[in-house]
């Protein structure tokens, strides 16, 4: 599995994702410059966290017009894997690959801390090595991560089983207290219909080494790395 990490001028988790794939997983990985229309034939595109173009107007708003995104859209349409983490998730909703939007945390504050997530499905290339309903700990770090969508969209997401991660408590309960940012239905991550595009607010790359406090995020990258190349997405 060849990975590509997109670099927007204001990305700041690009090197972190690269590090995990290169040094922890020892898998091939390339940087993809925002101004180039070239995905370097990678299998999985990562849109990393950060502040793509400063995020001054709306998070992810300007990034969606960058040349590389044209190719990412094509890649996704052809069934290629795409994962957007944090700012990457915001970009995916702006560009329309995923529904809904991410708005300001009700606390009006940037929030950086660990969260517990329940893995809602493990039949995806991104989550195949997690157990179903497994509770994992992955940190968030965002000011605008509150997931919103209109009612129909939300219903559709639930009906089609497209919620991949939900904020939960230590027993896996989904409730208000375990919801750090007011996301509807405690949504932390969703996928598209085909299941080849994932967006999530928490940062799996930040817990992929024991010394940094956990390995729950590494499982996601290992799932991807082990996914059969060209294999069908469930």
């Amino acid at each position, binding site marked *: 599995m060849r990975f590509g990490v997109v670099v927007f001028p204001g990305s700041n988790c690009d090197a972190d994702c690269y590090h995990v794939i290169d040094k922890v997983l020892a898998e091939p990985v390339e940087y993809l410059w925002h101004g180039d229309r070239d995905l370097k034939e990678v299998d999985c595109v990562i849109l990393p966290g950060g*502040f793509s173009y400063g995020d001054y107007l709306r998070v992810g708003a300007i990034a969606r017009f960058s040349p590389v995104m044209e190719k990412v859209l094509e890649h996704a349409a052809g069934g290629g894997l795409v994962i957007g983490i944090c700012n990457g998730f915001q970009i995916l909703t702006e560009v329309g690959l995923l529904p809904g939007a991410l708005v300001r945390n009700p606390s009006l504050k940037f929030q950086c801390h660990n969260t517990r997530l329940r893995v809602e499905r493990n039949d995806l290339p991104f989550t195949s090595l997690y157990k179903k309903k497994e509770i994992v700990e992955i940190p968030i770090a965002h000011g605008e991560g509150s997931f919103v969508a209109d009612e129909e969209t939300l219903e559709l997401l639930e009906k089609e089983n497209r919620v991949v991660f939900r904020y939960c408590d230590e027993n896996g309960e989904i409730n208000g207290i375990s919801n750090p940012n007011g996301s509807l239905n405690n949504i932390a991550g969703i996928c598209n219909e085909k299941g080849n595009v994932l967006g999530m607010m928490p940062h799996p790359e930040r817990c992929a080494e024991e010394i940094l406090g956990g390995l729950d995020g590494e499982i996601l990258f290992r799932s991807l790395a082990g996914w059969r190349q060209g294999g069908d997405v469930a």
Partner: protein
Amino acid sequence: MKKEFWRKMGLSEEEYGMIKGILGRDPNEVELGIFGVMWSEHCSYKNSKAVLRSFPTTGERVVQGPGENAGVLDIGDGQGVVFKIESHNHPSAIEPYQGAATGVGGIIRDIFTMGARPIASLNSLRFGSLKSKRSRYLFNGVVAGIAGYGNCIGIPTIGGEVYFHPSYEENCLVNAMCIGLIDIKDIAKGVAQGPGNPVLVVGAKTGKDGIHGATFASEELNEKSEEKRPAVQVGDPFMEKLLLEACLELIKTGYVVGMQDMGAAGLTSSSSEMASRAGTGMEMDIAKVPRRETGMTPYEIMLSESQERMLVVAKSGAEKAVQDIFAKWGLEAVVIGKVTDDGYLTVKEGDEVAARIPAKALTEMCPVYAKEAKKPEYLIKAQEYDLSTLPELGDYGQVMMTLLGTGNIASKEWVYRQYDYMVGLNTVVGPGSDAAVLRIKGTNKGIAATTDCNARYVYLDPRQGGQIAVAEAARNLVCAGALPLGVTDCLNFGNPEKPEIFWQFKEAAAGISEACRTLETPVTGGNVSFYNETKGEAIYPTPVVGMVGLLEDISRVMTMGFKDEDDIIILLGENKDELGGTAYLSVIHGLEAGKPPSIDLEAERLIQRTTLALIKEGLVKSAHDCAEGGLSIALAECCIAGGLGADVVLSEEMKASSLLFGESQSRIIVTAHKEKMEKVLSRLSINKVPYKVLGNVGGEYLTINGSGWKVRLAVCDMEEKYRRAIACYMDM
């Protein structure tokens, strides 16, 4: 020249005379403006230089001491740690969000100007009481500003400190520290070498903002301060991120001769300092400087403090290559002049000469003053206060809970949860512990960092307070398993023209000096911030010590939380009957009096080295120093951090309040597995370190048994109090 004009520039009559002497003629307005900022305290250190000379600045590991944009220490393998602290107090008091944000931006530039990649930030903050609306407004804005800038640029904010005290009510303190990592061979300096080499302005456009920021920082705040609008700027962290990446890419090419960020006094200070350091001159056509607004005068362009700009001296012929790199990042890089060999700073607008001044006249030739110093009256009274008459409160558990819930001791989680402290994947120990620890990828090493200053001690005895600030910083690093390496300091004081303030400053600096010598932590840079007063009232003297340390083996990193049931708790150091200057006195008795705790620097050093050896040998499982609130609070913090209780006996014959809440220095709490205890104790005996076995870890309660008294508190109750306190105030 009219007297009002040079007075307005902050110059004295003698200084004006000197300038005329240097130039051999009357200066014009532009020249006077340039002298005004360069000879301001903020840029010239004219009132503090003589005192700062006493700092130890050399050592085996010092690659770059004071004088450059930041200090550099050798950490082995050809790598260096680059670090510096700086104040942004006055702007933050006027516009907390932007003031703090641009403070962070400024110190980050100092680090990457050296060619280093910034890897972490810290900050040291002081506000008035949390009960005050204005303080909460400032606190809220400052933290948001630090977060807004640091999170966006992607540099983790890994630690710092926050204190609340009424003396900061109007004049908050915002000190920002940044740490970078560099291959020593790649260090870039702020020098304009090689006559004929091109000089470029890179980064953001120049606007009218911040004109006279340096002079502003060299005056007291008053009702008129709010009118000094231009002195506050708006930061653009995205622009700085672009500038950072472009500069680091540029330095790799080898085309850079010298580089300096445009901080206080903008183009003026960067050009004159770069020329002065190299012994060269510089000629610039400011008509070429890209600007944001029309109709700017030479005076305004030279003095603008627009953020996110750098001055670069490149190798001749490399102009295009430099411009290409900046273009890739969407930035401008414009040649505005060249290095000359005449020693003059020549500012032209087109063909017109707007200013012509010897570069060294602006730097080295600035007069240095030895101010009058006088021991303040308050000190004698405060130190003589008779503490023996204090009533002994019975319910020590209640006192502990009260202390855990005061802003100065309570968890700073409300603050650091707003900071992205993880980005970069190096944060092994984040905020909330004694010191933060970063790993260095590709090696087994780690760097630890902290900032510290107990201003109450400094107020009650500036020299001793200065010593303790250094000792505590070093102790915090040691508790993380790191060897303290060096210091950057930010000396925040009132108006130095008052002999009492200057005395505080001199004494505190002397204390820092002494401690740095004994603990072998040279000072590689820092910052002085005077005039922190409002309406004639000075802040508490606050010499903040920023310190970095080295872990040779990151796997030996240490944290303060208790680890396992039945581990043995050992206290290194001695409990003394010292309540002067404590949090207990201040919070419970409303008193800020007495002599601060004594400190024996040699004993401190011994305890620190011994603790470090125990950690390196893997003999202990946790380490935490006793600081504000004393032994009882330190124990509570170990319990809360580890989620475990403890059973402790304090058998000494001493007043319970002194034993529990006294803040005697040079004490560290460690825990060890039962089977390692003998070995630990024998090490301590051999090293002649005084110690006491206090008890053991376990259960859900912290129980402290004294002679005739007992404290028993549930860990979860203490945690609730400790973690929620600041949020409670801020939700008001």
